[in-house]
């Protein structure tokens, strides 16, 4: 689905990704790789299918868009160095012509050299084309359009017959677009949007707009 926001065209992808045609850039919210392997501390290292699935989804997106640049909007790797990072950086390196940029988030605690080895540039934020790419939301950025992650936005859909469903979403306000967490593993924060907020649900294959008019 393609939308216009802050004078730019954006392609919303059902796999919880955002593509920016002008700069041929793929933008991804919180990935939280390595989170599942946290359980190692409990003495139980178990291969986690969801972790593998996240890697595969990333690979497919890179093949689909073949972007020249990828922005990770923070919280890329949710841990200290471990085996999961190795499998992630191997994937990144195999797409080496692509420039990977990490906008640092609160969970990104690896050493600079680890990022460098994987060919990932780390920046606190990026400002370009009237836009500001940041990890956390910024309410007032002097008219810049803020693109961010961090909060894992979700919404509730209600229907007749006591039906109620929760979904992650793209949460598009006038001056701020919050991306859904990329990982399938993390929970979400349920928001109750104002009428003016545009809400898009990534459904895998496609994206569905559910904005209330």
């Amino acid at each position: 689905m393609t939308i216009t926001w802050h004078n730019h065209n954006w392609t919303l992808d059902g796999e919880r990704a955002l593509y920016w045609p002008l700069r041929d850039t793929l933008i991804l919210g919180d990935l939280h790789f390595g989170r599942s392997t946290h359980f190692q501390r409990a003495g139980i290292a178990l291969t986690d299918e969801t972790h593998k699935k996240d890697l595969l989804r990333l690979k497919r997106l890179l093949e689909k868009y073949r972007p020249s640049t990828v922005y990770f909007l923070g919280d890329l790797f949710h841990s200290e160095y471990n085996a999961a990072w190795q499998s992630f950086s191997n994937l990144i390196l195999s797409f080496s012509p692509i420039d990977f940029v990490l906008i640092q988030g609160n969970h990104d605690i690896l050493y600079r050299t680890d990022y460098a080895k994987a060919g990932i540039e780390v920046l606190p934020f990026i400002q370009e084309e009237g836009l500001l790419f940041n990890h956390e939301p910024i309410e007032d950025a002097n008219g810049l359009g803020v693109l961010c992650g961090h909060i894992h936005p979700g919404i509730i859909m209600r229907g007749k017959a006591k039906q109620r469903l929760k979904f992650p979403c793209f949460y598009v306000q006038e001056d701020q677009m919050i991306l859904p967490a990329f990982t399938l593993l993390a929970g979400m924060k349920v928001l109750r949007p104002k009428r003016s907020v545009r809400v898009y649900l990534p459904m895998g294959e496609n994206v569905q707009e559910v904005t209330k008019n």
Partner: protein
Amino acid sequence: MNDNTKHTSQEIQALSDWFQSMQWKAFPFQVQGWQAYHKGDNGIVNAPTGSGKTYSLLLPALQQANASTKKGVKVIWITPIRALAKEIKLSAERAIQGLSLGLSVDIRNGDTSTSARQKQDKLPPDLLITTPESLHLLLARKGFDKRFKGLQAVIVDEWHELLGSKRGVQMELALALLNHRIKGLRIWGISATIGNMETALSVLLGDDANRGQLIRADIHKSIEVKTVIPSDIASLPLAGHLGIHQVEAVATIIHQSQSTLVFTNTRNQCEMWYQKLIDYDPNLIGLIAMHHGSLDKELRSWVEGGLYEGKLKVVVCTSSLDLGVDFRPVESIVQIGGPKGVSRFMQRAGRSGHSPGATSKIYFVPTHAIEMIEGSALRQAIAEHSLESRLPFIQSFDVLVQFLVTLAVGDGFFSKEVYQAIVKTHCYAQIDEEEWRWCLRFICDGGGSLQEYPDFRKVEVDNEGRYVVRSRRIAMRHRLSMGTIVSNPVLWVKFKGGRSIGTVEEYFISGIKEGDVFWFAGRSLQLVRVHDNTVFVKNTKRKTGKTPAWAGGRMPLSSQMSKMLLRKLHEAANQDLFTDEELIQMKPIFDYQRKYSMIPKKNELLIEYFEDREGLHILCYPFEGRNVHEGMAGIIAHRIAQIRPITFSIGMNDYGFELLTDQSLDVESIFSQELFAPEEVHEALNTTMNASQMTRRQFRDIAAIAGLVFTGFPGKPKKDRHIQATSQLFYNVFESYEPNNLLFRQALHEVMERKLEEGRLRDTLERIQSMDICMVNTHKPSPFALPLLAERIREKFSTESIEDRIRRMELEILKG
């Protein structure tokens, strides 16, 4: 007359003489017990509390112990409730003195100090009063032969309480081992009457059951059931479960009685009623107290003491006062809301009018109008003495692996010997050699998918082939985590000064913030802060606030109650048949029900439906308890979904279930016997999502008992989240990589058998096959439907694509 019988008759004469000197009269069942015991029999004495059941077995056991010249413990008396131990000890000491025996008595349980235990180890008492858990702890220590060489008998008190639980399995294992190793060991149980006494006997004695005696006291107490019906029947709401509107009637009963016990069904309801009674009549302050399982132990024993001494006029309580607490009989018993089981109700009624021949009186307070019918069903069930059965566990591998590690921590064990012992139990009679080998592998290296992890290498095999635990750390952790009661993880509520009030569940506290006020233990408390596992609070005068709820509150309607309910409905359907006060009073409600719908006769299954703003409501009333309804609703939803993709919201109570959908359905053509076919029930239950969610919850307990997850050191329990997370992780691993894992299979089995009552569900479906299905379009909710529509806990079921569902839904937005 040979020597032996002569000896026996001398012993019995001694007992009779002592009874005479105390001016007591021995009941026939007591004399039968003495004779059977001295003859060398095993068995069960079936007698109610307060009937002199203790002396039916304790006395001959003491006599026999007195004749022994061996050292060490002679008789082990198991009591499931610690609070009863002191009373047994006093009874024993009185008998020892009265019969001039030279015997010693001591208690060993969780309250026994380390120094007292050490003293016992050096100089064991002749009679040891203990719990199943403490007995297992003795097995987890070295020196079995020395400790038990003089043992003559094990007597299990309150066996009916243990029977349907894993503590019962624990008891079976200990008995099997002791019986296997000690020649001529006597095994006896004492049990109140339950629906399956024969099973109780065969579980207690295992393979030897056919040689066991069942001695029945046959003491029946007359019970009068009085349903509290408001003078204006219309003032009873048609739905709801708290029953607060009846506070005036209950207060009147309290005032007219010297002392009253008010039983509620949940801890939350207990707190509410205490609050409302004080609000209604502030004069009760100082004379009223509350008793439930989440209150601090000291607080509870203060209440128990107050009851014992007759200082309290009224105590609002839950099942926590059902047993194990000794106090003077109270004058009136009040039961708020349907007790759901006949046995429980009779036990509660028995708290009043203790003197022989006296009638126990119990007031039943219905919380909504339809519930009145339960009063008349209860009276009928009592008249027919139709009591519930207790379903013993079978193939509990979690308890077995715990037991094996226990033995390995103690003297160690040989596989062959223990196998021979445990296959004689009722629980493990079906275990095959492959399963046994799996259990041994499991304790040695975790078996299957856990082999990589050193944490699960607990037991080793030594040169002689003996299974032993060498690591002191593993042994210590095991001793700390033994037992089969997996408590819900809780937070301690304390005053800032440190005085403890009780416990609440984590999720309740997560819903309130610092400074918020909540009502607990009969006080308004303000949350100061939460630190580790403790919630610090202070008293406040502010009155508003939430009342905590605790999980695992509600019991489903028992099948005995179901049968009676259906009979009473049948009487109501044939208007001229009924004579019960409740049914007569319910006439306006029955008329109303008849006007909009109908009252089903015993060969009819009623299905109502109507459409409103919410969608299409389909209501079905099998009256088989919420567990069966949950399973049945899932199956019906699943079968309708075979016809077309559909989404349901499912509600259930003890009378029926509701399927609610936003799609339109031709109810009359879809609902037929075929939809209720009893075939492939197991498969259908497995595919409905409820089964797997329940299994996950069930697995948490199994994982803890089997020692897969460590629940923390005493007083420093781990947070629920961690236990939950790790047990979930194991569940996922077993589900994907090791579906034959016995613990995983056990969880499935327990859910099917206990949570979904698969057997009862299948019976119900079969019954429906020969019934008339009556469908009524009621256009609006009938009186039967209202309590069901008010159920807030609902299950979801859908076979539609998410996209299709979203199309009919709306985004929830910020109002205003």
